[in-house]
């Protein structure tokens, strides 16, 4: 026995103090407290892997037409059935996940970056704040889907236009969260201290204030991820989002709605996969919120 009678090995403690393992330990503790979050993470990781490596894991081409299989119900040949021209619905749903997840990921990233920047500036400079907040209020006065549709009418539907449009619509909501975090941090003594020793505004903003807004921002980013996927699906469902050439969950559903009576599976499966993914993201978001932002978890 080499361990001391103090019950722990001092070397282990020293190792555990490294930043990498500290995050790892925190992360594991968070998962342990939130079994739901594990479920969400597993679903997301499985699904992302499936979409990324779809070429190797899915045996059908999502655009291959097989008229003989037209309206074939779900079974051994086509797991999710076949659509109106005999395309494999399972392949279309998996490939469609690429577009949907790309939209969700890009929107969450852009909204976070834009929201952080505008929110930090707005929260820290009262003069700009008044103007910026009124603009944000105005954008938020439009129901999200309506503004997104109007902007699509202006720009036209494509994957990147859909990403841009949802980013514009969602950014004010992130700005509001960052700003309120900034307002509560701004009056802290260490900010006064930093100002006192002559730190430039950019350093105060990005080195001292920004890190303290991270918890709510990370939590909200996961919700924006999920919400963006739903908005994309709504736009494509209305026939005004992703053009029908690229399968996305929304436009597969949109096509399936005409054949609900003969072939419910065309609309059922993309919706089911969409719901499961949004649910998984929300579970991860709830888990992160409970772990990082205990104040929020009490209010919602």
């Amino acid at each position: 026995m080499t361990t001391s009678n103090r019950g722990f090995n001092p070397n282990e403690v020293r190792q555990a103090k490294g930043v990498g393992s500290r995050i790892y330990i925190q992360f594991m503790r968070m998962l342990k407290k939130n079994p739901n979050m594990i479920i969400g993470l597993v679903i997301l990781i499985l699904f992302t892997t499936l979409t990324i490596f779809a070429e190797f894991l899915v045996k059908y081409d999502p655009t291959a037409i097989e008229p003989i299989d037209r309206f074939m119900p779900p079974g051994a040949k086509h797991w999710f059935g076949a659509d109106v021209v005999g395309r494999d619905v399972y392949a279309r749903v998996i490939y469609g996940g690429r577009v949907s997840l790309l939209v969700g990921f890009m929107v969450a990233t852009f909204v976070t970056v834009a929201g952080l920047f505008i929110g930090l500036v707005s929260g820290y400079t009262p003069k700009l704040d008044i103007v910026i907040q009124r603009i944000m209020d105005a954008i938020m006065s439009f129901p999200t889907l309506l503004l997104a549709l109007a902007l699509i009418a202006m720009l036209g539907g494509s994957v990147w236009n859909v990403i841009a449009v949802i980013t514009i619509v969602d950014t004010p909501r992130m700005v509001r969260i960052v700003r309120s975090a900034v307002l509560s941090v701004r009056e802290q003594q260490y900010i006064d201290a930093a100002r006192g020793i002559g730190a430039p505004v950019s350093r105060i903003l990005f080195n001292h204030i920004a890190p303290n807004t991270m918890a709510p921002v990370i939590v909200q980013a996961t919700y924006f991820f999920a919400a963006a996927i739903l908005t994309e699906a709504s736009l494509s469902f209305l026939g005004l989002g992703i053009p029908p050439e690229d399968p996305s969950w929304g436009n597969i559903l949109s096509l399936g709605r005409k054949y609900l009576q003969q072939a419910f599976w065309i609309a059922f499966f993309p919706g089911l996969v969409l719901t499961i993914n949004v649910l998984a993201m929300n579970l991860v978001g709830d888990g992160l919120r409970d772990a990082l932002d205990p104040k929020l978890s009490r209010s919602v």
Partner: protein
Amino acid sequence: MGKYIARRTLLVIPVLFIVSIITFSIMQLAPGDPAAIVLGGDYIMYATAEEIEEIRENMGINRPPIEQYLSWLGGFFVGELGKSLFTTESVSLLVSQKIEATISTVLSGITIAIVLGVPMGILAGWKMNTWIDRSVMVFAVLGFAIPGFWLAFNLIFVFSLKLGWFPVFGFRSLMTDGPIEFLRYITLPGITLGVAFMALIARMTRSSLVEVLSEDYIRTARAKGLSERVVLIRHALRAASMPVVTVIGLVFAAAVTGTVITETVFAIPGMGRMFVKAVGDRDFPVIQGLMMIFATSYVFVNLLVDILYAYLDPRVRYS
């Protein structure tokens, strides 16, 4: 209180001003000539310069943008929102024909959400950490993730196509067709629209009730021997109703988004479907008119919610 209302109401003006600028800019920034939209893609090549000029003159788009903006905004104040590019009917007339269907859909959705969501939240909060609580919360998480159009398909498939209880789509007016027909047609759209808000309201009610139930005065009320019913109704629910009021404002905005989808799926002739059609046709005066109506009503609903909130909780007025 009066001072708070005045201050809060004044804030509406700059917001609506920016709303109108955003709405107006969308048409100005759209690529392509609106005259070409009216003529339809290919015809513009055959139309003479005079014909195009005449159309532009009729539409008033040959004037400078500032002048166009002012006359458009002026029209908004007297209820004149421009004319559709295609049918040349006035937008206000079109809206007046569609508004009943939209209000019916939104109200039935919100009614279902409140009538079922609030009791679910109360039950879950009261019986915290029991199986009742857990099943309500599972429902709340699920209801939030299900996209409206997919829920609608499942409802139509089961209740209309398989069981035949409700019609697949359409709308009947409460005034002209009577309450029974109205309810038969509005039930599935109402559920479609209401489920997400039901989930949200149940969650909010639960969490605020849980918080209130841990307060000292609730313990006092119980200690002095009041029945559980009185404690719950007289003391807890009153305090717990605050966040629910705020949620109604949120729900209103979300309901407008939801009604776009719901009206499209169920072929309800309302403003949401009108908006989708206008976007498809690039009928910008209709898009602008509807955006202004939706945004303005959202701003005023929020104003009302804020005032109501300040009335219920005096602390808000002084912050």
